[in-house]
């Protein structure tokens, strides 16, 4: 009898393990996701690039090199993101052999929307694909078109420095199962298209929640405290609460939009820290996008 219980237990446990293994498998986008896509709209790609602040992690300037703010950025990578899970080295995504010059759009879309690399492994979520997964594939296509126009860099970036157990690639699949978002992070009362645009820019493209929302022990976003502020991963200070319940609760929609445009708070303190790079991107957006982001931030639940 005891032997049978033992066998049953082993069967149940291995079935469980097999299920987990299957859940954790990297899955690429289905072919149907690519139907009906036309040639990239490079101008819209540039707008998406600015809203996403891609340069603030991937540019050579982010890795400490001198650069010209007015020139198109060179996305040679090399910036290091330190975390409790290890040190992540931001890759070269410029169109070169050291970057993603040999990628197809399928590779890029799988990376952005599924967090899966061309070799079929999972990316670490330090690359914020759990936000980008909410993006429209048309915008990803346009962004791809814009990235191809940027300067190439031969910068070779070393591998991530992530110790066991976080270096078990398959485990990232379980993380994705737990934390890849439902269609939206918060539910808004209103169906105003401007709010919807703001929601898209904040939750998907801008990936604001990656810094402004606190994380649990496994590094997943605590969505019930959406944008409620979090410790600064660099260890200095805090990333502010940007819900109506936070410090900016008293700012008007115009104050917020002016901050995105100019980098100045209503009392003319200036933007600082990693937000300075983010704001430089926001300043390049059309006015209606800044207004949409501002409207969204006023509409989300106060925390």
């Amino acid at each position: 009898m005891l032997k049978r219980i033992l066998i049953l237990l082993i069967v149940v446990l291995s079935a469980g393990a097999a299920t987990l293994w299957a859940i954790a498998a990297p899955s690429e986008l289905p072919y149907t996701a690519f139907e009906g896509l036309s040639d990239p709209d490079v101008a819209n790609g540039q707008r998406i690039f600015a809203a996403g602040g891609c340069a603030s992690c991937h540019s050579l300037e982010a890795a400490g090199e001198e650069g010209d703010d007015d020139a198109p950025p060179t996305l040679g990578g090399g910036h290091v993101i330190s975390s409790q899970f290890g040190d992540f080295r931001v890759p070269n995504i410029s169109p070169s052999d050291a970057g993603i010059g040999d990628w197809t759009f399928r590779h890029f879309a799988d990376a952005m929307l599924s967090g899966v690399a061309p070799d079929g492994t999972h990316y670490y979520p330090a690359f914020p694909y759990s936000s980008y997964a909410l993006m429209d594939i048309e915008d990803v296509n346009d962004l791809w078109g814009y990235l191809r126009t940027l300067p190439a860099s031969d910068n070779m970036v070393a591998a991530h420095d992530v110790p066991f157990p976080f270096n078990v690639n398959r485990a990232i699949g379980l993380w994705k199962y737990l934390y890849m978002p439902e269609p939206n992070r918060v539910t808004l009362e209103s169906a105003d298209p401007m709010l919807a645009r703001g929601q898209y820019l904040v939750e998907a493209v801008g990936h604001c929640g990656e810094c402004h929302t606190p994380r649990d022990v496994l590094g997943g976003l605590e969505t019930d405290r959406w944008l409620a502020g979090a410790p600064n991963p660099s260890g200095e200070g805090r990333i502010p609460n940007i819900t109506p319940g936070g410090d900016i609760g008293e700012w008007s929609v115009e104050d917020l939009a002016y901050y995105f445009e100019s980098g100045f708070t209503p009392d003319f303190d200036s933007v600082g820290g990693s937000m300075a790079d983010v704001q430089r991107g926001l300043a390049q957006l059309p006015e209606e996008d800044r207004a949409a982001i501002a409207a969204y931030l006023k509409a989300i639940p106060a925390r």
Partner: protein
Amino acid sequence: MKAVRIAAGVLALSLVWPLAGNAQDGEPQEVRQQLMEEVGDATGVMGNMLRGRTEYDPQAVIEALGVIEANAAVFPDYFPEGSETGFETEALPAIWENKAEFEERSDELSSAAAELAGAVPEDMDAFAPMFQEFSRNCSGCHDDFRMSDD
């Protein structure tokens, strides 16, 4: 007209003088915070005009830039060894690690303010892009040397 300018200058000085006087006392952390408060207020004088909250006044712009020029010139003097912490300072260790660059950036702000003060146009639409260019000095430095708040 000259008399009006002198009167405006005296008025501006009388407004700034007591603040500057207070700023010289106290701990370096407090002094530098006060200096930067004044820079923020002076920036606000210009920014609020550009936001349409107050009327554009070139003379007031020149005075505001004078405050920034003066304060930025002495600002780095208030970061001695031992003032790295305390008084809720938001100064990053990078200031002491790259002291020369920090001082250079503050000097650049001071000279940029002086230069802009000598070129303030009568027309606000002409001033707007100049102010935008000038204000890069703020985030350019806060980016590297000040803690991101709250």
